[in-house]
């Protein structure tokens, strides 16, 4: 990803099944997206 480009939209369900979209936070909050490490 390049700086000062638009972050790609995505949607995932949280662990309670609630749908979360990146656009839910637009015009509202700055976000820290952390992609966790894993062995998969």
């Amino acid at each position, binding site marked *: 990803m390049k700086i000062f480009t638009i*972050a790609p939209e995505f949607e995932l*369900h949280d*662990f309670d099944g609630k749908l979360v979209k990146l656009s839910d936070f637009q015009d509202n909050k*700055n976000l820290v*997206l*952390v*992609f*966790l490490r894993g062995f*998969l």
Partner: protein
Amino acid sequence: MCIGPDGPNAFRRYWGVNEIPFIGLPDPKHKVANLYGQEWNIFKLGRVPALLLVDKKGNIRYQHYSDSMADIPENSLVLAMLDKINAEG
């Protein structure tokens, strides 16, 4: 928010035990991880961490794609970047 390769039960358990206040998003099919270019490398033992700051307009303002499992930005750096973004209004 955290996006990870584990399933919802693992997230629910970990979030509950550790009382984590921010959003955890299971991505077991790696859809979003691949979309954002998170590296998977068998010689680095799997999915390598990545961190991005996205501002209110949806712009990526900072990115860190780790070189190893231990290569994680310091909290102070991330918080300083957030302070800078927040100061812009």
